[in-house]
């Protein structure tokens, strides 16, 4: 037992990999530890002390913490993992504090000009500021400061652990890891939880930087048809859908922001089709959906036609039962045929065309009918108020390859001029997140936004 305690001491101080200089110590230990065959003492040259079974390597404060409920430590950015392990290796609480203070001491000071209200963490009893910017590799770099040394230590942990990492990684970090440090840091989300708010602010800033960077890179690529639509390498676009959209919107003189919006939405729809499960994709439509499309195309020669099967949303109510599932659709039709017709008349036209379907199980249509000269409204309008959003999840049971999401959200930061219009007017109150097949960042963004909304 004395041996194991000295082992413990030993292991806490040395790094994982061992070098020969420690061999001499091991020799003295060997003589008294012949009873422990687990350790490869008998081959001094290749001794490895790495996994000493008698010593709990992680902090014994709560072994249950490393259960599945916490974000696995391997998911954390590498430097943060290191920090966590370091704290776990230090057992005495006072020493942990010293460690924390040490981190804080080595934090690069934040220039006074950055100590603005925008950069201040809400809810800290002490004052904490956080600054973020992107480096040349588009990784986010943080700087922070605080007038309280303990908070500064926590800020330093976050700064060191998260700086220089890609935005997606930063945004995915869950605050749970702090319990592993053994600092008795509360995780209760409350106005006053400085640590939680610090992390959230850092993630929010990273996100804003990402969006701004993406937007400015799209704006510069305005003339290039590849950029924005196929720039991400998407193929298999619905040509009859995508190109007309771009042309018609490019012709409307609204401004650079709308273009990037259009690009984003077409990018999004591009992703949908790429994954074969998109609401706008032909392959997801069943036979009825296909028929609807055909009928409308033939009769109205639309320059834009979007047919979306939303029957799963209504699964279970009277109109659906007993039919083959394709009962509710969203339609968007932009056609010259609507010229001079009132809204009611336009809807009537569409209903008349789909009479047969309506009599054979088609239960409801939600129609947007525009002429080419009309602004395909919300798509070109930039709502300036912050949107609220709920989720609509396309379910797997509908035969979609994966849980299908597509990004629609509005952000408030008018001073940064980041506006993203809803993909579709009627979806203003819902959003779906792009599937992991597309840009891996997007699900995280939306999940993050969800958690902060």
């Amino acid at each position: 037992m004395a041996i194991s305690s000295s082992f413990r001491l030993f292991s806490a101080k040395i790094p994982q990999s061992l070098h020969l200089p420690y061999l001499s110590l091991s020799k003295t230990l060997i003589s008294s530890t012949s009873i422990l065959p687990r350790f490869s003492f008998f081959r001094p040259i290749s001794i490895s002390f790495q996994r000493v079974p008698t010593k709990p390597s992680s902090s014994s404060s709560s072994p249950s913490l490393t259960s599945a409920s916490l974000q696995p430590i391997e998911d954390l950015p590498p430097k943060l993992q290191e920090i966590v392990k370091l704290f776990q290796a230090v057992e005495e609480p006072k020493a942990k504090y010293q460690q924390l203070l040490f981190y804080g001491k080595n934090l690069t000071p934040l220039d006074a000009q950055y100590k603005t209200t925008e950069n201040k963490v809400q809810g800290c009893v002490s004052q904490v500021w956080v600054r973020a910017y992107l480096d040349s590799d588009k990784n986010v770099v943080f700087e922070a400061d605080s007038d309280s040394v303990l908070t500064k230590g926590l800020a330093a942990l976050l700064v060191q652990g998260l700086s220089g990492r890609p935005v997606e990684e930063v945004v995915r970090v869950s605050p749970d890891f702090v319990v592993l440090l053994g600092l008795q840091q509360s995780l209760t989300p409350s106005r006053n939880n400085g640590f939680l708010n610090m992390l959230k602010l850092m993630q929010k800033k990273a996100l804003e930087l990402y969006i701004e960077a993406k937007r400015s890179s799209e704006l510069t690529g305005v003339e290039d048809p590849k950029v924005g639509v196929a720039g991400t390498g998407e193929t298999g676009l619905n040509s009859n859908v995508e190109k007309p959209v771009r042309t018609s919107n490019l012709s409307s003189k609204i401004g650079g922001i709308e273009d990037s919006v259009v690009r984003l939405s077409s990018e999004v729809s591009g992703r949908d089709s790429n994954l074969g499960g998109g609401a706008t994709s032909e392959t997801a439509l069943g036979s009825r959906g296909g028929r609807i499309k055909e009928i409308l195309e033939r009769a109205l020669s639309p320059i834009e036609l979007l047919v979306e099967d939303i029957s799963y949303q209504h699964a279970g109510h009277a109109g659906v039962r007993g039919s083959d599932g394709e009962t509710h659709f969203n339609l968007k039709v932009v056609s010259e045929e609507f010229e001079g017709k009132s809204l009611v008349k336009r809807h009537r036209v569409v209903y008349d065309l789909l009479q047969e379907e309506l009599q054979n199980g088609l239960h409801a249509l939600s129609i947007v009918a525009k002429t080419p000269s009309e602004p395909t409204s919300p798509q070109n309008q930039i709502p300036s108020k912050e949107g609220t959003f709920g989720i609509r999840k396309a379910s797997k049971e509908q035969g979609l390859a994966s849980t299908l999401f597509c990004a629609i959200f509005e952000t408030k930061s008018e001073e940064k001029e980041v506006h993203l219009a809803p993909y579709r007017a009627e979806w203003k109150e819902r959003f779906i997140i792009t599937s992991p097949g597309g840009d891996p960042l997007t699900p995280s963004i939306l999940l993050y936004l969800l958690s902060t909304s």
Partner: protein
Amino acid sequence: MASVLKFPSFKFLNPNPISPTSASVQVGFRRFSCSAPSSAAVEGDSSIGSVSLGHLTRPDFPILHQEVNGSKLVYLDNAATSQKPTAVLKALQNYYEAYNSNVHRGIHFLSAKATDEYESARRKVAAFINASEPGEIIFTRNATEAINLVAYSWGLSNLKPEDEIVLTVAEHHSAIVPWQLVAQKTGAILKFVNLTEDEVPDVEKLKEMISRKTKLLVVHHISNVLASALPIYDIVHWAHAVGAKVLVDACQSVPHMAVDVQRLDADFLVASSHKMCGPTGIGFLYGKSDLLFAMPPFLGGGEMISDVFLDHSTFAEPPSRFEAGTPAIGEAIGLGAAIDYLSAIGMQKIHDYEVDLANYLYESLRSVPGVHVYGPAPSQTVFRAALCSFNVENIHPTDIATFLDQQHGVAIRSGHHCAQPLHRHLGVSASARASLHFYNTKEDVDAFIHALVDTINFFSSFK
């Protein structure tokens, strides 16, 4: 170290008959055990040479006997909220177990009993502050709500553009914000009295600020940061001379000393139960009868009405007029029990003990290098309450409070203590605060100081 004593002559101090025998106290001189503590002859210091009030009453407060973070709890955050004796806890439990029922409306036995106890609590509060009748006590959720009541009911109907309201920069947010809101609506103007160099509100300036335009003064009795007391008697006198009313925030005074509203002649006075050993969720507004009768309702609903029609209603007389809806019945009764408990000890006794403890705390803190305590220095003429807000050079108060808690189990508060304007005036963003009550002892203070020194050393070694 601890000895169990029977002191028959002390029974009157503890309404709870169990405690004297279970008390484990340190006794300096056993031969004094037969004399009453108030006559212990050692120069007015009633704690040395006999059992101190703190030691006597501690057993009544079960929550104090626990460990936090591996150390014994030393609870020094009483200005934020006080602990409750078993008598109060029992009263609450008993209410819910034996006679919980809605008050004022029912006819059956339980309801009658609940009403009796509730109104009895009101009488206890009235007697406790020497109001002229129980109807002058309005039960509210807490002192903050009581101030809002005055602001929205009296303020909105009495304040006109250019009317002035005088406050000090040391007021609690609850005494400032409602008046800001009402001033916006009525066009009244808020005027603030600054501090002197001794870090107390400038009473001379306050006197000068009162004019014919002044309609209301909102002042604390005892400051929750500076520990200073304002001369309410004089202030009311000056205010009444110009026809102005005075609202006294007595949250830090009522729990610690005898307060006599008739002697002070205050127009309004507010306090919270949870700071005076009563439950949370209940507080009260004292208002002079004629003022209350002239005030329009604050919250509308049941109980505060007389007759209700579809297009209008008539209202009840005070206090019912200002007690809409089902009140915190159990809590009011709990407050009554707290008042009983405090009265059994005697507010003068509590006050005397706490003055002693206050001086001890102040002197001990000041002896620690690098510590600056806010507020006046106590003396024969200057009263200081048993609390100290302080800052340590080069160490953030949050760091101090965190370390004290985690390493020593000492509970103090760090922040702005709901007095941001005051902190701004003092030029700091936050301060640490240790605040005592009659169940604290000198040992608590010693433990705090010891822990503070350790904390300061820890952080200093890092510079």
